Each structure stands twice: as structure tokens, then as C-alpha cells.
């Protein structure tokens, strides 16, 4: 038993699902019964839909238990730990026998997430055990020149994982070309897309990987200090980053003459952002670090020439940095083995929405969206029909079912009108109204606009008003044209990515679901039965039992009917709230 390790996933997803309770239960039993297995913490392994997850590693191998609660935890101790009898029914994944999550795990290639869910993120030693800081040591030991480091990254084909997809090596090269006595390296950890949590998982699960990536980057461009711009809504990430930075300083990975490299000095600071979406845009991010209102400015000059405090600055996002040590250690060629011609390596996606397995996956570029959703994600929940997937968050677009064979690489996804973005995939089924979805994302960008550019400030507001009007059944004949016209103008005439991409969700839904728009506008109908103002609720006399539940719950008293008699909805009083539909136990409310 003393060699048995029990590892509890304590990422934000795990904690939210109750992992702390499970951990405490395990700890309690271990201490009260004085059991000598090792109890450890780790972070999210990606199987968020199975949290709380507990991994038991014994002589025979590793077993992941899913949906563990306090009761199951006790059973695991009793059966597996004490008696060395794994509870097969609870195991969701193991190499040793077939499990329900085989597809999910086996389809993935983990580079970015190589340590997530395996190490204690608060332990630098565990990171070091899994080849942590070896990349930097390799550079120092072999005296690899800055230019060679940049060359390696260039050759690896790594492109910016924040969404822009700009070649990272090239970005570093530009920053390196601009000479200055002071330069900065910034990690953009301002992940803000609704439904996206890749960066958070990496920061919570493997902070040192990001730090090591930054150190290598700083070395390559001769940066003198670094800033991690992380949103304050990620307290766990910030806590673990702080611990990691302290540990790295203590171990000499940060500080003066790092790893014996004379003159290579670097320290890192965390700047907590207030959660403004626009601060993910690099010029606004820089303004925010400088203490100004987070608003973008015109580029050029790019940060590589004039960034933080007007000094040359390189900004990459979390995922990009996390890839760096792996590439240095394993070589550019090894990395470039994965992916397509123009998009190398892997990409982490956050699966969300109407999908069976919502969580984090890392797949090689080139896999089809269909495979990601159906093979890894397990398909659509509740046996519904797959309709579309939203990629790239508020800046992205909806890819319809008929384009599901599109492969994940920057250019293929762009061709659909969506973008790769930071990796959010929101899956939608037949019950999703595409206008409602467009409205949701536009509402987000409209509220997150900084207010600087005319088109973004007022244009998105007007678009939202038109969408709202359409969903309320007040759509006008030329609304689609108006939306398109405004969309193109906004894309053309905004300073930053927020405005330039804000209309994408609208444009792609118009492109692929024009009929749904027309149904709303001309027929005053919502085919997905989502837009309440466009629905009529009627009692199905066949099914109605006269139980009166609907009438009792109707907020506008619009339902008549005596007990045990068929009820009737007075349409003139109905406010389309849907309460009767929700409350009816006999499925006797028809929506049309």
C-alpha cells in the first residue's frame, strides 16, 4: 500500500464538482485509519464532465475514478486501496481494460497539457521530475544562441495560440531585431471568451511550463523583465503562479545570471486584470499594465517595436508559452510532425455546450471537427441532432453540421467564417436558435466594447438591437441586409480585434442559417422554439389530464380549466413565458 498513490484533481472544475470534499474524506480516512498510501493533489486532466476525478496508481497501473463523491471515495479506499481490488464500475479510464472514456483519452496528443492532471502544480520538484526546466537547462548547458532558439521556434511552425495564429518565431524575431536597453516579455493570460478555459487549466495545472516558456522567450529576445497579465477572476491560477514564481526564483530560474548565463537577468510579475475582454488585445493590455484605461491603439507601431512603456515588447498567450519548453527539448522536427502543412503541433479545445463530454482536449492539428465532437466529445447529449459548433468565441463563428468535416487548422477554420480562436468549441443541437446564439455573442462583445471606435461602440449596439427585435418578432424586411452592411463596416473600421471580429457570429449564422433568420422575420416563427415571443403554447387535449399544475403556475393567469378537465390557454393573456411547458408533467403543452 505504501507505494499506492491517490491523486485528486483539484482544478477549478474539480473543486466546483466537489473534489475538495472528496480529498478531505480521503485524508480523513487515511489519517484516522493511519493508512500509508500517498495522497496527492493535481489539477484538471481535461475530463471535466467526470469530475471529481481520483486517480489511483498502484503496482498494476493507473485507474481513473470518475464522478467520485465522499461515499465512493470510501469504497475506493476499502476495495482498491486496502484490498487492491479496483472497482471496475467506477473506473472511467485505465490502460488495463476497456473503459467508457477510452476514446476521449486515446484520441489526444498531449504537449501543452503534458503535465496537467499528473503533477502537483504547487510543487516545482514534480515539474522538474517530468523534465521541467530541462529545456532552459539545455539552452544554458549547450550555450544555444538566442538566434538558434528563435530559429528552432520558427522551424517548429508554432503559431500564436491566442487566436491570431501569427508565427511565434517570427514575433520573437521582430522583438529581437528591435534593440533597446530595456525590453519586456508579456504572457497574455486574459482569457476572456465565454466558454473557454484552456489557459486557466494550464495555469492551474502546470504554471511552471508557462514560466519556463517565458524564460526561454526572454532569453531569445533579450527581455529584461516579464509580466503575466492574468484576469483577477482566476484566483487559483494567480495563487499557483505566485507560488511557482517564488519557487523559480528560489531555484535560480529567475533572477540574475540565470543558470550561469552571464548577463541574462529576468524577473516576472503578475498584473491582475479587471476582467475587461478588450484587454486581451495586446495594445489595450499594455495600456492596462501602464495604468491607463484599457483601450487599444492603432498598430503599427507593433509592440515588438514600441510596446510596454514604449519599449520593444513580445506578447504571447499561455498556451503558446507552454509549448515552448517541449519544442526546445524535443526539437522543432518532433513538434512539426504533428499537424498540417501550415498549422503545426496540437491545439487545446474546451468542449462545451450540448456535448456529452464537456472538458478539455488536446488534439493534433488536422483532426476533423466531427472527430473532435463525436469521437472525443462523445457526440450530442440526449440523443439530439448536431446542428452547429461555435468556434472562436465572440470573435468566431458557427460552423454548421454540413461543414463538420472541416479539419482543425487555422486556414481551414478561417475559410468557414469562424476562427480557431483560443480554442472554445460550443456545440449546438437542434434546440439552439441561431439568432439567439448570435445575439448572445454580440451582447457579450457589445458590452465588452471599450467604447473608443464609433463602429464598435454604436454599430454593435445597433446590431444587437436589430437581433433583439428579430427575436421578439419585430424583425423588418431589410434587417438582414442592414445587419450585413453594418457587419462589414464594423469589421472594416475598428481599431482592434474585438471590433473587427465582433460581427462574425452574426455573419456566419446569416451565411449558414439564413432561413432561420427569414423564418423569424417573415413568418414570425422560431424554428428552434427558443424565442419566446414567437411561440404559442397550446394544451394538447389528448394528453392533458386536468391536473391544474399549469394553471396554478401561470404568472399571467392565462390558463382556464376545471380539475380533471382539459385546460385551455387564452392566447390574448399568454405572455409566452413557457412556465406551463416547464411544469407540465404529461408533456401536454405543445409549442408552435
Amino acid at each position, binding site marked *: 500500500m505504501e507505494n499506492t498513490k491517490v491523486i485528486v484533481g483539484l482544478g477549478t472544475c474539480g473543486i466546483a464538482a466537489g473534489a475538495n470534499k472528496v480529498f478531505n474524506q480521503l485524508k480523513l480516512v487515511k489519517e484516522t485509519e493511519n493508512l500509508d498510501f500517498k495522497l496527492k493533489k493535481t489539477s484538471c486532466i481535461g475530463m471535466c464532465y467526470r469530475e471529481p476525478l481520483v486517480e489511483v496508481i498502484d503496482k498494476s497501473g493507473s485507474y481513473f475514478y470518475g464522478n467520485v463523491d465522499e461515499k465512493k471515495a470510501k469504497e475506493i479506499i476499502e476495495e482498491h486501496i486496502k484490498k487492491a481490488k479496483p472497482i471496475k464500475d467506477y473506473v472511467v479510464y485505465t490502460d488495463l481494460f476497456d473503459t467508457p472514456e477510452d476514446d476521449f483519452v486515446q484520441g489526444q496528443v498531449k504537449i501543452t497539457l503534458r503535465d496537467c492532471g499528473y503533477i502537483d502544480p504547487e510543487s516545482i520538484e514534480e515539474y522538474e521530475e517530468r523534465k521541467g526546466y530541462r529545456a532552459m537547462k539545455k539552452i544554458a548547458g549547450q550555450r544555444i544562441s538566442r538566434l538558434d532558439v528563435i530559429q528552432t521556434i520558427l522551424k517548429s511552425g508554432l503559431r500564436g495560440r491566442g487566436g491570431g495564429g501569427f508565427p511565434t518565431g517570427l514575433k520573437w524575431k521582430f522583438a529581437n531585431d528591435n534593440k533597446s536597453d530595456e525590453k519586456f516579455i508579456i504572457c497574455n493570460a486574459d482569457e476572456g471568451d465565454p466558454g473557454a478555459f484552456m489557459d486557466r487549466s494550464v495555469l492551474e495545472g502546470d504554471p511552471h511550463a508557462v514560466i519556463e516558456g517565458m524564460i526561454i522567450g526572454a532569453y531569445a529576445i533579450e527581455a529584461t523583465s516579464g509580466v503575466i497579465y492574468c484576469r483577477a477572476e482566476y484566483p487559483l491560477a494567480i495563487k499557483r503562479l505566485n507560488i511557482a514564481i517564488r519557487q523559480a526564483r528560489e531555484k535560480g530560474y529567475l533572477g540574475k545570471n540565470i543558470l550561469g548565463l552571464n548577463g541574462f537577468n529576468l524577473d516576472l510579475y503578475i498584473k491582475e486584470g479587471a476582467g*475587461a475582454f478588450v484587454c486581451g488585445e495586446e495594445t489595450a493590455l499594455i495600456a492596462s499594465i501602464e495604468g491607463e*484605461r484599457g483601450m487599444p*491603439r*492603432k498598430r*503599427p507601431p507593433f509592440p515588438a517595436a514600441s510596446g510596454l512603456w514604449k519599449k520593444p515588447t513580445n506578447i504571447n498567450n499561455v498556451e503558446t508559452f507552454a509549448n515552448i519548453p517541449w519544442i526546445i527539448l524535443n526539437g522543432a522536427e518532433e513538434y512539426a510532425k504533428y499537424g498540417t502543412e501550415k498549422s503545426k503541433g496540437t491545439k487545446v479545445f474546451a468542449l462545451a455546450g450540448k456535448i456529452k463530454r464537456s472538458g478539455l482536449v488536446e488534439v493534433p492539428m488536422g483532426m476533423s471537427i466531427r472527430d473532435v465532437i463525436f469521437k472525443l466529445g462523445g457526440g450530442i447529449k440526449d440523443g439530439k441532432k448536431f446542428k452547429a459548433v461555435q468556434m472562436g468565441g465572440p470573435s468566431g463563428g458557427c460552423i454548421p453540421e454540413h461543414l463538420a468535416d472541416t479539419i482543425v487548422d487555422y486556414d481551414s477554420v478561417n475559410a468557414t467564417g469562424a476562427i480557431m480562436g483560443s480554442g472554445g468549441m460550443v456545440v449546438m443541437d437542434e434546440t439552439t436558435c441561431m439568432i439567439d446564439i448570435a445575439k448572445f455573442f454580440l451582447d457579450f462583445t*457589445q*458590452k*465588452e*466594447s*471599450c*467604447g*473608443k*471606435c*464609433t*463602429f464598435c*461602440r*454604436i*454599430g454593435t*449596439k*445597433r446590431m444587437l*438591437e436589430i437581433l433583439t427585435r428579430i427575436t421578439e418578432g419585430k424583425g423588418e424586411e431589410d434587417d438582414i441586409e442592414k445587419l450585413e*452592411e*453594418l457587419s462589414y*463596416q464594423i*469589421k*472594416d*473600421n*475598428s*481599431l482592434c480585434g474585438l471590433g*473587427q471580429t465582433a460581427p462574425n457570429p452574426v455573419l456566419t449564422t446569416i451565411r449558414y442559417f439564413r432561413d432561420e433568420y427569414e423564418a423569424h422575420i417573415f413568418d414570425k416563427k422560431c424554428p428552434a422554439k427558443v424565442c419566446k415571443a414567437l411561440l404559442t403554447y397550446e394544451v394538447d387535449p389528448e394528453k392533458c389530464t386536468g391536473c391544474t399544475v399549469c394553471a396554478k403556475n401561470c404568472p399571467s393567469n392565462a390558463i382556464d380549466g376545471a380539475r380533471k378537465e382539459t385546460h385551455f390557454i387564452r392566447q390574448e393573456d399568454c405572455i409566452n413565458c413557457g412556465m406551463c411547458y416547464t411544469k407540465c408533467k404529461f408533456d401536454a403543452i405543445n409549442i408552435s
Partner: protein
Amino acid sequence: MSEKINIRLDDKTVEGIRGETILELAKRNNIEIPTLCNDPRIEPYTSCFICVVEVEGFRGLQPSCSTKISEGMTIHTNNERIKKARKTALDLLLSNHYADCVGPCKQACPAGVDVQGYISLIDKGMYNEAVALIKETNPLPAICGRVCVRPCEADCRRNLLDEETGVGIDYMKRFAADYDLESESKFKPQIKDSTGKKVAVIGAGPGGLSAAFFLQKEGHQVDIYEAAPKAGGWLRYGIPEYRLPNDLLQKEVDNITEMGVNIFFNKKLGDNLEFADIKADYDAGILAIGSQIGTLIGCEGDDAENVHPGIYFLKEMEVSGKHYDFKGKRVAVIGGGNTAMDCCRTAKRCGAEEVFVIYRRTEKEMPANPIEIHESKLEGVEYMFLTNPRKVNKDEEGKVKSISCLKMKLGEPDASGRRRPIPIDGSDFDLQIDFILAAIGQKTNVNFLKNLNKNYSGEELKTNRWGDIDANSETLQTGIKSIFAAGDGVTGPATLIEAIAQAKIASNSCNQFLLGQEIVPPKKEFLSKKDNFKKQVPEDYLGHFEKQMRDEMPTLDPSNRSNFEEVELGYNSEDVAKHEAQRCLECGCNEYFTCDLKKYSTEYNAEQNKFSGEFNEYQVDFRHPYIEIDNNKCVLCSRCIRICHEVVGANALGLVNRGYETYVAPSFGNSLSDTPCESCGLCISTCPTGAITENVIFKPGPVKLNQAETICNYCSIGCDISLNYKKDFVMKVTGNEGLINNDGNLCKYPKFGYHYLNDVSRITKPLLKVNGRFEEISFKKAYEIIAEKIKNVEPDDNVFFTGARLSNEEMYLVQKLARNGAKTNNVTSFHYLNRGNGYIGNSIENVPFEQIKDANKIYLIGAEINKDNAVAGFMINNARQKNNIPIELISTDKNSSMKHKVDEAIFIKSYYYFIKAVNYYLIANHFENALFIKDNCSDFEEYKKKVLKENFVELVKLSGVKYMDNIIEFAKEFNNQMNAIIVFSEKEISSNASFELFNLAMITGKLGKTSSGLISLKEKNNSQGLFDMGICPTLGVGSQAILDKPLQRKMKKLWHTRNLPKTVNVSQYESLEKGILKNIFIFGEDPMGCALNKVQVAGWLSIVDYVVVQDYFLTETAQMADLVLPASFPIETGGNYTNTQRVIQKFEKHFDKKVKKSSYKQMIDILKKLGSREESKSIEGVMSEAMSLLPINNIGKKFKFNYTSNNNNNRIFNHGCDYINKRFDEEFEQAF
């Protein structure tokens, strides 16, 4: 060297300068790219996206304000894609621009008369100008002021307050027009040079008269042909005299004929006027024939005798000159319009026993003016509403006997929006009646058509389906290209103001025709309207304005109206008109003429309703006394915020909220007056709309203003400003791109300190104190008194004080007055009184302001620049923001207002000892720049010897620095800086400290170097002139020693005299203190008002025998004078000032002088009186006389080290001893 690159700009190859933006390149190449968020004074920002252009090879459009050019770039600035983007940007901005460009009054007026503008002029008593403004669109204001139906007043927002009484717009118009008619300076329109073209106008009614007015103004010869024997049309023949007296009408007609318009009477087209003749003699024609045919009731029996169309009844009396006799008769008037009113009230005046108005709807639906209905009731007219005549019953003789009527009720609204009357069955009744006047409509008489059309082949004048003349609705051109039509003849019977509006359009088109231009309607200007967002309700206005009920028009007592005397009597005084003017809510935007948003919206045909949706509504912020913020008009360009940060350094404004909710607000949401705001008004100057404007105390209109360029006469920077004025009233001051303020920046003094120019309490005549009270006397008498006073005492018993605000010319004359008139050298200024002579050299070898931006470091030593010389402060702050030049403050004031704008600060107790200690340290440690000193300076060794005798520790102690190291560090750093500038102000620094600063600049070898050395700031616009013009007992013109032989010789020759004063009394201060002076002459200073110690100054002035003061206003000093002379404003004479950097700045005369004799003429007159040989000279002549006394040159003269043993006195007056400065300083302080 700037690098040149090649650019393709709008299909032309042009030369660009590397580093410049597309916007700058386009501007240099005279291509105007519209922009709202760009201001060359501040860094590009890029938010409005109006300035977008297309750059080949770039994705999307590029904002030209922040896109830098690069070699080979191909740029298009104005294609369809760009225009569309610009229009959309404007559409979007306008969809959230809850504001009115013009008030509803102007919008409602068919002729678009600028009501708010003329109310503003009436507010200032400019009645002729008000009439001039009205006559731009309406040539008949006196008539209109009486009989207009006043749609303006109906729409006036005052109706939402004050019990639905709109502003008395028409009453005021009538007042101004009547005033103008009787005025000696009656408005006469400017008539353009003759074009040689002739126009025939048919009809001398309001349409024809107006068309004639507009066309004659354009230089065409207009002849009017009128069928009637007199002019006026229905104004004369329809409107009764009690409303519009004929002689008044004739006066306005005369105004038009006085322009050269001929009227031929009794000429009726198709009757005794052949159109062939017209065609032969004229280049174009305007048909303003009116609607001449009256209609009857249209019911059975209306052919009875004594049934008349109302207009014939009215016309008949005018033609015959006889009134009907209705004595004892019952008269029915059918209809509810203004003709019905004229008929019923006239019928009463003709003696009718009873008059009934029969109208089929209710009073609410009556089209007549409410005031007419009201007056008619007062006069005893009875109303039968909801009544419709059905039949006229005749007696045997065929005369009307009675009328049968039906009662009606109101049904659904009809096409006109009024509820349709429906007969009530069986409600018939009969009314006994003797006369019936039908006032239910008129028709146009077009019986001349044939006669006309036969002259044209291929063209035809047609009628429309109502029988009126058919003309293009936008241009009023008829089917015959050379003929235009206007008025009732086109529209059918309508109102006076509509006829005028049509005449304007028709004559505009006709003018285009005559000039061979394309005939197009005037371009529709874009107007933002609050009504586009929501209907205005009382709640929007209640509580924001004071209640003030309308000044009603006095009328003839109703018991006194059995005649045709005018009923409305007109406002009986200017006060009433001006008081009524105060009721105007100024709905229209103050920036109507200057708003860029409006300009571009017009240019790009932007639409406010294209993207209408939710809009933001804000309360206007009036909390700052000079600056008002109207966020409703803001386009979020942030120019105000940025100029406040980058130029002013105050950071008083910021953005609040995000996205659509963003707005500009003073920091922390406070009132702007509670922020570090310096009230410079640069935010106003940069705002592209009317969102930040001047919070003015008068009605600004807005009206078109004239610009008078001049030099600011507050501080010594010498900024170029424009006084924006109407007549002689200054309404606004703006900055010009001047020699000194080359980006047009201004501070609060010129921006807001102009109200004194409008002050009517100015002195205009000499005042003599008699028994303690001032009496006006003639200039001649005043000169006699002055000459006598001077002659009766010894020359040196006189002393002449000269204000630092005077022009060089005036200063020169004052010293001449002393030296050649009174024969004394006692000429000085209170401004520099008893302050030593250390200031004399302050302006020598100053670093020019434009070199500030190239310094390595700037030291402010005793210079509260943001308060006293703010424009210099702007240059310094801008250099800090833009070029990162560090600023260090050395101040004795721990709360210095500069504290937050500098990088370092040292607080000390004495500037003098601080500088002296620095000098000691540098010399004692042999840090002096020996080479510089050897080549350029004299007396160093002596200075060194004396300084080194002093005690360093003691000097440090007296300086009040915290640590001795402060001084040592300062000394070392300043010495080692390549380009370091010390900025100091005479207001804070004593004259001996000035000497020591000069010594410091010499020791460190920095004096007179590029971007290195000293900048001295003086208190007044012409403080430097005092030294240059010899306002000093010891110095003559050009600061030459007064007793120098060559100067004396020149003066004697120039002044034709052998007798010049030989003695010099150095200290006038001592003379004042001892009380040995007899006469004091003070030109433009207010020592009493500005004294730090008033008792002392009062003592000086009371002990002397005679005090003469010349000033604009009765200052505290003037009140103590025995004789006061009026002074002219600089803008009334022109002249020169010398700024603190010795730049001589000329300014022109722009205003007529308000005083009979300008200041300098008075000085010449007094000189003459004292026997000096003076020719009458222009201001330029005075200047050239002064210049001829200047020394040949100063080349090769070395800078002199001046040792001072201790600190000396500082100033004894505030405000530069100037009343104008004092007045504004006090006003400013009280305002907060």
C-alpha cells in the same frame, strides 16, 4: 533632415515626408480629409473613423490620422467605399446625438428665419443687425411682425413651461423692425454689382415684393407689374388697417423700391399688359400673382344680394376708401380662418349690431390665430361652432333674409388630421341675417395663360389639378424655363410667410438661371433634432429654467375699437423687448456655424434615423462658471481629455463607463471646478461639436461673427488672438496660429477675460471733479487744466506713471510728455516701482519659446506658469509629455499649483539666496565656464571676489533648503546639462535675484545658447515696452542712459528743443513717500485697486495737489483723481507691444473708438498745449519717431556680471498694477 518618399495620392505622385501620417500628407496637398478625433496639437488617437482612406494592399480601410506613409504607398481618399464608410460612421454617431442644431422656431418657420440669432441681437440692442439677419430670408419683418401666423411661436419650447406661452417672437421682431424703420442707421442690404440682367415680377404682393428684394440684391434689375393701384396685394387689400396700417406697409414697400426696384401699377397681365412685351424686355420672369378669386358658400341661395366673398368685402373698402355701413345690421361670417377673423372684426368696426362667425368644427380646430379669436371676442363677435350653412333664404327683392344651418358633431379625423364634422339630422335652424361674408377659400386667376404661352413654342406654362400654377416643387421653375412662380398662385391661398419662403426659392432658382448656372435647390443642410429621438415634454425643461411669463403686447382698449386704429400697440420700450428676449431657451446649438459633425453630416448626406435605437440622454453640466459640458452632443473623440493631459497637464477630464455607456466627465464625477481644471478653455477649442462650449452670460445666438485679430493684452507671452464680435460686442475669443502661440493655444485670460470690452460703463469723456463729484468737460478744457497745473509748479514736481498694458506708441508719448512737455525725467511705472533695476536685462538673450521642446531639462524657479503665463506652461508640459523632458520645480510655495506637473520639486524659502548659494558653490569649486566668460562677459573677477567673501553656509541657511546637498546637486546637475533652461517669473523673483540668475547663466556658459539658458516671464503684455520706451527716470528710448550725450542730441533734434531736463531723481518711491510731488499723472494703471498696501498708496495720492488719471473705467485710482481722461482700447487704435522675449508685435485697429479722442491723440494734444512741436500723426508715425531714437547697434557688447549684496524688495502691487487684470482675477475668483 526629413527624408522624402514618393506616394501616389489620389492618382497623383506627391512627395511625402517619412514619419508623417496620411492625413498630414493630404493636408499639405490641399486634400481635405474629414476627421472628428484629430487635432494637430495632440497625438493621434483614432476613434471616429471618419478619416478613413483606402490604401492599396491593405485589408480594410485605414484611419488616415494614424496611418503613417511609406515608400510607394498608393492612397485613395475619396471613392464610393470610403464615402459609404464615412457616412455610416456619421449615421451611427448621429443615432446617439440627442441634440438640436437649430431651435424648433427656425425649423418651424417656412422661410427658415434665424429666430434664435435675432433674439440674441435684440438682447444686445442691435436692432438694425437683427433686421439685417431677418432680411436674409424675410424682407418684410415689420409686416410679418404684425400679421404672421407664427408657426415659430407654436413650436417654441417655452410653451412647455410658463403656462403654454411661447416666446413673443413676433412681438420682438416687430419691435426691432419698427425701430429699424425709424432709425438713422436703418439696415440697407448690400446690392451686388449690376449683372445687366432684367427680371419682371408679376404682382406686388408679399411674394412679388420678396422676390424683387432677393433678385435686386443679386445685382439684377427688377421691375414689378401690379394690377392694383398700390403695392402690397392682399396685405393692403385684404388685411384691415387695424391690424396692418397702410403707412407701415408702404414703408416696407419703399425700402424695396429704394433698392432700385420699379413698380408699375394698374398693369394686369392679359388685360392691359401683353406678355410679349415682358418677354421682349426681360431675361426672366416671376409670377407672384396670388389667389385673386373669392368663393361663395356653395349652398343654395348664395347668389342672394348682400352675400359676398369676404375678401371682396375687404378689398372693396380699401379700393373705394369707404367703409361699409352695417349700422343696426346682423352679419354672418362663414369660415374659421384668418380671413374670417378679418371679416368679423371689420364688420364690427363697420357698425354691425351683431356679428356671428359660423364654423362647422369647434374653436380648437379653427385655423385662425388664437390671438385673433381672442381679440374678436373682446370686440363682441359671437361664435356659432359646429354649425354649417345649408341654405341662404332670400326676400322678395333677392336680398338675403336669413340663413338655414345644421348643427354638426365631430367624427373621425380626416386627411388634414382634424376631426371631420358630421351633420346631425333634424338639427336645422334659421338665423335672421342681413349680410353674409363667405371666408372659405380663394382661387387663382390664370386667365392670362394663353396670352403668355403663345409667346413660347415647345415650352408651356401649365396649371395643376387645383387650378394653380404648376411649378417644380423644389426650384419653382415653371414649364417655361425663364419663368418662375411663387406664392398663393402656386400653393393656393396660404400664409404671408409661406409666400416669402417661396419667393426666396424662386428667386434663388431665377438667379441661377440668370447666371447660366444649373438650377438646383439649395443644398439641404443636415440638422440634428431632439424630436427625432422623442417628443419633448415639460419634464425635460421644468426645473432647468426660471419661470418668466410672456411680456404681452399692449393693445387698444376694446371699448375704443370702433375705428380702424391699429389694435396692437407694440412693445413700448427696449427694456420690454430685451426682457422678453431672456425667455428664449436657446434650443439651437451654440456651435451651429462651427460644428464639424454638422458640416460633415451635410457633406455626406448623413441621416439621423438610419440606425435609430436606444440613445443616451444626459443633463447639461453648467457647474463650471466658464465651461459647460453637454454630453448629449459628445462623439467621444476624447480630444478634450487628451488636450487637457498632453498640453495643459491638468488631467481634469476622463472617460467613464465602457462601450455604449461611455461618456466624458470631470475626474471623479466632480464638478469641473472641483478638479485640477485650470479653466484655460482648450477643451472648448478642440471640441469638434458643441459638447464642450463656453458657458456665456449673454445670449450667444449663435450669430455669424466677425474676427478681429489682435495680440492678447494680459501677460507678456504675446499670444495671437481673434476677438469674435458682432458690431462692437465681443462674443467669443479664439486663438490664432500666432508667432508665439503657433498652435493657437490660449489660456483663461484671453479666452474668458473679454467681458470688459462689452462693458457699457466705460468712460468716454473727460471728467472733472467738482465738489467731490465728476462732471463731464470738454477735452479742450481738460488740456487747459493739465497745462496750467504743470506750468504752475517746478518741472520735477510732476511725475508721470505709465501702465505696462499701454502700447509702445503710448508709452513713448508719455515719456515725451514728461521730458519734452513737463521737462522732467520723473517718468516711471507703478508696475516696477521700487523694485530695483535688475529686471532691465531680463529679456536679453532669452531662449525662444519654440526651443523649449529641445531642452534636456527645464527648471522652473519661481514660476507658477500654469496660472500667470499659462501658454508658456503648455509648451513646457507638452514638451514633458511628448519628448519626456524632465521638469524640476524650485518653489517657495509648498502648495505650488505646479507640483503635480513636474518630475522633481525642491521647496525653499528664498530664491535669491538659493541662486546665490549655487553661484558661490560653482565659483568656489572652479566649475565656472571660463572660456565662455572670457569671450562673452565682463566684470567676472570682481563678482567672484565679492561672492567668495560671503559665507556659503549662511547662504544655504538663508535659502531655506532642507539639505545643503540640494544646492550642490542642483548646481552640479544644472552645470552639466547640455541643454538646460531656467524659466522664472518676475512676479515671484526679485530684481536682485534676477541679476543672480543672469550671473548663474553666465557662470555655466548657458546664456544665449540654443535650447539652453534663461526664459524670463513678465507680468504684463508690454512690461518690456516700459524699458524699451524709456519709462524710467534714468533710461531713454532703447534703455539708453538718459543723460548720454548722443541720445540727448538726438532727442533735442527730433523734438525741436534745446531744453531737456538735466537732472534725474532716481527713486520716485522716495519722492512719493516724502510727499514732495505736486502733480501725479497716471496713464493706465490702478495703484489703488492693486496695492498690497492701500493705505500707503492712498497717502501718496492724497498728499499731492493734483491727480490726473487716464483709464477705460472709473477705477479706484480714477475715483481719487481730480481729473479723469478716457482711454481708448488698444483694438481701437492699433499699435505695438513688445513681449517678454522682445518680439515686437504689431496689432491693427479693428473697432471704432468709443472715446472721441483716442489715448495717444490726447497725449499729442497735451504735448502741443505744453508747447511741443507736434504734427498730427498716425499711430505708425509715433512708432517711427520712437524708433529713430534707438541706438545704432549693440553688437560686441559684453554681458556684465552684477554683484548684489542682498535681496531687494519685491513687487508692491498685484495684477501687474492693471485694472483689467485685476478685474478678471477678481471675477474669476468670485465665479467659483
